[in-house]
């Protein structure tokens, strides 16, 4: 059985760092419409910092929850902005979901739920606030539903990715209630939330990993 284990997490961070580097300018542009234009930089630099830290600490020999804790430390040490503490809290929460060891990949929703919960608690946000949570929360729900319906691993991850993308698109119809964008209120209508966009990108990475690995 394929597992959410150390190798899986390392592969995720590596591919995510690449994709975020490619999306750096796009995410900054999105953020410039509703915020201060730094989101692409924070995310790309943050995931780069994670991959560097994982190399430095020899993550391949660590249990999966320790890999996520190292990722959290990288975000706390290297990424400021809002995404630093938000993803650090998300990774720490996800690490607790892996405390007993690797999870079957069919249980992707448990990882996503824990991540979403950590982010929600730190940011004091709920779905509908036009934040990254509007991609993470539906992704977790869709993964749970697909697993329940007996879908295979690639289909579960694909369902999560589709839900994250739809959630991201839905943020364009929302008025920001959290974060710096909240200060613009009505003027955020019509714009996709950059945090939701990068979250959807990350869930897409999970789906691509599942497909390539199938």
């Amino acid at each position: 059985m394929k597992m959410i284990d150390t190798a899986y997490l390392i592969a995720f961070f590596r591919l995510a760092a690449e994709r975020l580097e490619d999306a750096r300018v796009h995410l900054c542009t999105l953020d410039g419409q509703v915020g201060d234009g730094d989101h692409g930089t924070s995310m790309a630099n943050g995931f780069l910092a994670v991959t560097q830290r994982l190399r430095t600490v020899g993550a391949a020999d660590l249990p999966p929850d320790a890999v996520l804790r190292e990722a959290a430390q990288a975000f706390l040490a290297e990424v400021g902005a809002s995404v630093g503490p938000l993803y650090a809290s998300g990774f720490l929460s996800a690490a607790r979901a892996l405390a007993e060891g690797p999870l079957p990949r069919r249980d992707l929703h448990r990882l996503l739920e824990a991540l979403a919960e950590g982010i929600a608690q730190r940011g004091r946000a709920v779905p509908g606030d036009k934040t990254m949570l509007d991609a993470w929360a539906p992704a977790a729900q869709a993964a749970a539903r697909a697993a329940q319906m007996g879908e295979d691993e690639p289909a579960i991850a694909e369902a999560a990715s589709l839900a994250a993308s739809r959630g991201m698109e839905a943020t364009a119809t929302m008025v920001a209630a959290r974060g710096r964008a909240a200060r613009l209120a009505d003027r955020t209508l019509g714009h996709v939330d950059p945090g939701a966009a990068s979250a959807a990108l990350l869930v897409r990475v999970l789906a691509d990993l599942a497909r390539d690995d199938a």
Partner: protein
Amino acid sequence: MQRFLNNPDDIVDETVAGFVRAHDDLVRLDQGNPRVVVAHGAGQPGRVGIVTGGGAGHEPAFMGYAGRNMVDAVAVGELFSSPTAKSFLDAIRAADGGAGVAVLYGNYAGDNMNVRMAAKMAAAEGIEVATVVANDDVCSAGPDERERRRGVAGEIFMWKIGAARAARGGTLAEVIASAQKAIDSCRSVGVGLAPCTLPAVGHPNFQIEPGTMELGIGHHGEPGMRVAPLGRAEAIATEMTGLVLDDLPPPEAGRVAVLVSGLGATAMNELYVLYDSIATAIEARGLRIERTLVGNYFTSLDMVGATLTVMALDDELSELLDTDCACPALLQERRV
């Protein structure tokens, strides 16, 4: 616009490096963290430490306010981006002299979260931390939602007052009370005439149409209250003054301090043109201006525009404002 750049991605590191070299009589880099600027004399045993921090691109804020009888340690973030929790923690450690540390910072989502995480980590090390969150920008939320307002140039008065209280031997609670009183007595407004550009992005991240101005603009270009046709300086000054004073509780005995700061790409002479009309408008309300600062004290990269901050004074704030200090952005000798 043509710029002095090497690799745009290195701009913050290079800014900090140049800053510390230029002002090594007052500040140094933290030993373990290249994103923490520390005043000489920080961590003096028994004195409350003063910490702040924020994104880069606001120079001379935030690190320019590290110095003697001013901020002890400053965490520096990426351009327009909160410093990391680790940098805030290292700043708190550097400022700690055993009497507690006051973190005096601005109300932004990222800064709030990173300071909160840093304070928790510091508490675990036995350092007592208390915070004041600046919220002086009147246009960022209504008067009934002051807790949602952003912190802007009023932070300079907050640091000055809090640090002066610490220099006079105040306890952590006293420092916090004075700093809180300072920011509660401050109101600010910004006007943007042209947007700013993150060098690595290369184009402005918002637009201000020629012939218009953004009234109430934020320190990162956050849209303000409204877009208005660009008027004469006198009219802009009068409108800014009205926005600030209408929101400010009436000053005791009508005494105020005034700070006019450029946003980065406005010439100094224009700031004085603006100040002249601002002073007239303030005095027309029967207020007396006791202290004035005009200059580039808190900028937003290369934004064209200016901010106005008015602080209502009483005897305590006046006395603390007059306390000697020396930091790269502000040198104040005792008045005679």
